[in-house]
């Protein structure tokens, strides 16, 4: 696929998503407000009850900041919900047209995914500007140019990993009549095991050690901790390598599922 075609698909998807602006902003603001308020009051209650200055190595302010960042950066990692695009193409028979396109299907879909990301980036900027003036940055947190640059790279890698994580699962659509619930399972697992619901430092040691061998920590916990300055450069490099390695493994797995699945694809649709 040429870079020009790739960028054209990105632009097309962005414009499609912005067609329903009211719904788009309602969802963005509603989700951010609800998530932030629940997290804020939950952790105020936990710190009040626990009576300790830090929990899992996070002070009260750092914990709130963790959630603000995970909510904002999570939008870029997740992107717009893709509503099982591969599965839909299989069920509707519309996959047939992609088979005759002179472009790789997975690259085409990733371009669409990135197109959906541009509005999320706008949301990130707008919501970030609205929230950050109200936050007190803890003295221990040093957000500088280096940590922002390292975090940006980690978020982009996490976005790719998140995209590839659902691809083999969606490939099951070649054999099963509906894979929506499989996608939800991946999302649920990645929320808790990736650090979107709770910082992974709060998990028992054995769970943290086990998770380090999975693709999940690199999705949310890692980019947020990078921005908070809790990840030194050599650990960041290792984390990025692990994230990209998992992406390569999932890419290979997804393509294997695709190859097997396309052999049984009839093109008729359901």
């Amino acid at each position, binding site marked *: 696929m040429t870079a020009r075609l790739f960028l054209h698909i990105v632009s097309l998807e962005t414009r499609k998503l912005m067609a*329903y602006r*009211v*719904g*788009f*902003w*309602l*969802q963005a603001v*509603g*989700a951010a407000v*609800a*998530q932030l*308020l*629940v997290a804020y*009051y*939950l952790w*105020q*209650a*936990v710190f009040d*009850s*626990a009576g300790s200055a830090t*929990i*899992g190595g996070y002070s009260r302010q750092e914990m709130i900041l963790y959630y603000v960042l995970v909510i904002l950066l999570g939008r870029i990692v997740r992107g717009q919900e893709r509503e099982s695009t591969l599965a839909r193409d299989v069920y509707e028979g519309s996959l047939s047209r992609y088979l005759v396109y002179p472009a790789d299907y997975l690259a085409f879909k990733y371009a669409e995914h990135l197109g959906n990301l541009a509005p999320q980036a706008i949301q990130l900027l707008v919501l970030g500007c609205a929230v950050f003036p109200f936050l007190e940055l803890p003295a221990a947190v040093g957000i500088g140019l280096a940590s922002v640059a390292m975090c940006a790279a980690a978020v982009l890698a996490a976005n790719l990993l998140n995209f590839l994580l659902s691809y083999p699962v969606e490939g099951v659509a070649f054999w*099963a*009549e*509906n*894979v*929506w*619930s*499989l996608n*939800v*399972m991946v999302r*649920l*697992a990645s*929320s*808790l095991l990736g650090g979107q*619901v*709770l910082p992974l430092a*709060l*998990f*028992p040691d054995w769970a943290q050690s086990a998770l380090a061998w999975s693709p999940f920590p690199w999705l949310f916990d890692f980019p947020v901790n990078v921005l908070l300055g809790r990840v030194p450069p050599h650990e960041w490099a290792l984390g990025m390598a692990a994230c990209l390695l998992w992406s390569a493994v999932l890419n290979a797995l997804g393509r294997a599922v695709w190859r097997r699945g396309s052999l049984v694809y009839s093109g008729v649709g359901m």
Partner: protein
Amino acid sequence: MQRYLRLYAHFLRFSFSRAMEFRLDFCFRIVMDSMFYGLQLAFFAVLYRHTALLGGWTLDQSYVFVCGYFIIDAIHMTVFSNNLWWFPIFVNRGDLDYYLVRPVSTLFFMSLRDFAANSFVNLLIAAALLVWSLARFPGPLGAGRIAVYLALLLLGTFLYYLLNLLFLLPVIWTQTGRGLDEMFFHFARFAERPDQIYRGWLRRMLVSLLPFALIVSYPAHALFDGLTPETLLHMIGVVAAAFLLVLAVWRRALASYSSASS
């Protein structure tokens, strides 16, 4: 009334036979909801590693609370959720016309036509988890309190349905309901945590104007501390107000429905 019961029996039969056509998806959904339950319990287990109390509740109380939430969620998913999910699409396509010309209440038909048979299995799992959480509860609860708790959970389920509907009805005017639908599920997160963690204006709002904190927490309070007349009146009052509001908005919405698809 009998006609509606007979009609609902037909809905059930159609829904079960349709669910059996897609057996693999049927199983996937059961696993999905079981996973959701497991992750919610894991969330509280991890949280309580760092504190003895959350909003004044122990881990055992929080387990009962969250299992009550599973019951409400499972009933909603089984009875209402599929139907409400389709509502904005019907409005957008103009398909609501087919519901309007039926010789039964449109609200009844639109809310209850599709019974999610797979979620019904999850309702059984949720019920088993509630029994487990009550059985491991260290203090005496008593059959009377448990009966009141279950009755209030049903009231909470009805409130949950009414709130979901209230978030969806503006689709008649806006033509796109997905943003509002998503917003409902984001706001529903307030119901997933004990109400005592909220303070000040937010707490006042969550037990009155946007009563998400009532849905699961108030029944749990009645179970742990006994039902007070204030709690009962508060809950019934809010549910009645939400019901009247839904009826009023529903009538206005149908009067404004243009049937034009976009």
